[in-house]
């Protein structure tokens, strides 16, 4: 077995051990129904969500890869959520490596529900060019970014701002994100977008406990892509993706989410597959102080 395959298997083993440990902890469910698009939903105060968001792909002319962003999301207040992401990836015939971290904050300035609920988002990223987590697409991001060999010496320290606009109407959620990202080493602002819509499969809950009841599933779709940069704003030389999203909130269990994504132009990867497993631990620090 090649050394990088052994490392990948070891990492996978650690991940499985973490999942097994978390399975022993009481938990509730994640809020969002998307992979890239953010909605107005923030983490409930005191709750900690741990999620592994993964994406796999086989870019044309490049090596297949699998990238995972391990997410720790904590609700400080009903209107303030903070998150830490640890990114890593493995690329066939190349290597497995840690690609950096992201620290983000989301703040909801209007406390009541409105037709459109804005959320302000700020993120600092310290990643390298080998990062393939694809948590958003901005500027002229394209398939070519996935063809260069893994190289973690080229650092990207970036600030990202998002305006999240989201509505819940007649049990549908519709969310739009406007993204502006700047590499702090004197690069122009880059822009992007993400739009999603979703709905629970059943609106009313059934009276009996069940894992496969339709109200435990949500179906949706999202579309996201780049919009160029400050010097060349627009669609030319940008990449875009679209895909359905299926979420399964297992009662008293984890949340699973799957999404096949399809590239919409020649700059995009033809196909990506996203999957996520998340656990939410209610009142995390209270439990640490008085475990019962």
């Amino acid at each position, binding site marked *: 077995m090649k050394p990088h395959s052994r490392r990948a298997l070891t990492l996978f083993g650690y991940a499985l051990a973490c999942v097994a440990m978390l399975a022993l902890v009481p938990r509730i469910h994640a809020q969002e129904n998307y992979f890239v698009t953010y909605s107005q939903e923030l983490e409930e105060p005191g709750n900690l969500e741990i999620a592994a968001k993964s994406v796999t792909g086989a870019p044309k002319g490049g090596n297949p890869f699998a990238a995972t962003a391990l997410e720790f999301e904590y609700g400080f207040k*009903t*209107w303030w959520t903070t998150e830490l992401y640890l990114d890593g990836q493995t690329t066939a015939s190349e290597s497995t490596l840690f690609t950096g971290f992201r620290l983000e904050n989301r703040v909801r300035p209007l406390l009541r*529900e409105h037709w459109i609920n804005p959320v302000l988002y*700020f993120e600092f990223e310290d990643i390298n060019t080998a990062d393939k987590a694809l948590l958003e697409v901005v500027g002229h991001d394209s398939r070519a970014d996935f063809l260069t060999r893994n190289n973690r010496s080229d650092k990207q320290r970036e600030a990202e701002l998002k305006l999240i606009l989201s509505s819940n109407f007649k049990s549908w959620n519709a969310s739009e994100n406007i993204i502006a990202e700047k590499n702090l080493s004197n690069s122009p602002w880059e822009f992007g977008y993400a739009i999603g819509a979703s709905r629970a499969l059943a609106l009313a*809950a059934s009276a009996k*406990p069940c894992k496969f009841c339709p109200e435990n599933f949500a179906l949706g779709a999202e579309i996201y892509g780049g919009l160029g940069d400050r010097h060349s704003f627009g669609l030319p030389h940008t990449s875009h993706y679209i895909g359905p999203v299926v979420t399964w909130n297992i009662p*008293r269990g984890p949340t699973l989410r799957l999404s096949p994504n399809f590239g919409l132009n020649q700059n995009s990867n033809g196909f990506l597959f996203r999957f996520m497993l998340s656990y939410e631990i*209610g009142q995390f620090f209270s439990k640490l102080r008085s475990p019962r």
Partner: protein
Amino acid sequence: MTRPRPAVFIFVLALFGFAFAAAGDGEWLHRVPAKDRVRPNPFATNSDAPAAGAKIFAEHCAECHGEDAQGKTQGKHVRPNLHGERIKQATPGELFWLLTNGSQKNGMPSWSRLPDAQRWQLITFLKSLP
């Protein structure tokens, strides 16, 4: 390589500071619009609604309000007892408004992500509490 500019971070922190200062909306019950107060609960007479509501409660609310809905003290936060007079006297419309908007200043999040039907089922359950 150019170093990150601290002014950018200070500006963003100040922006969030203003957002925090604007937070807080007072007592929820007094803010319920008149048309929302009188909304009837379409699940009030549904025989399955209390059991379905109990399931929703266990999934989303019990963590803070306790499995028996008797309330909890978590650190310095007191999560209210839902068997209390306030819940008994509140109209279904007022409770629906609370679940939709939350009482965010007091740590109660909005549950607008739950479909309307599930919020009404939850209210039927709350109204059935002794």
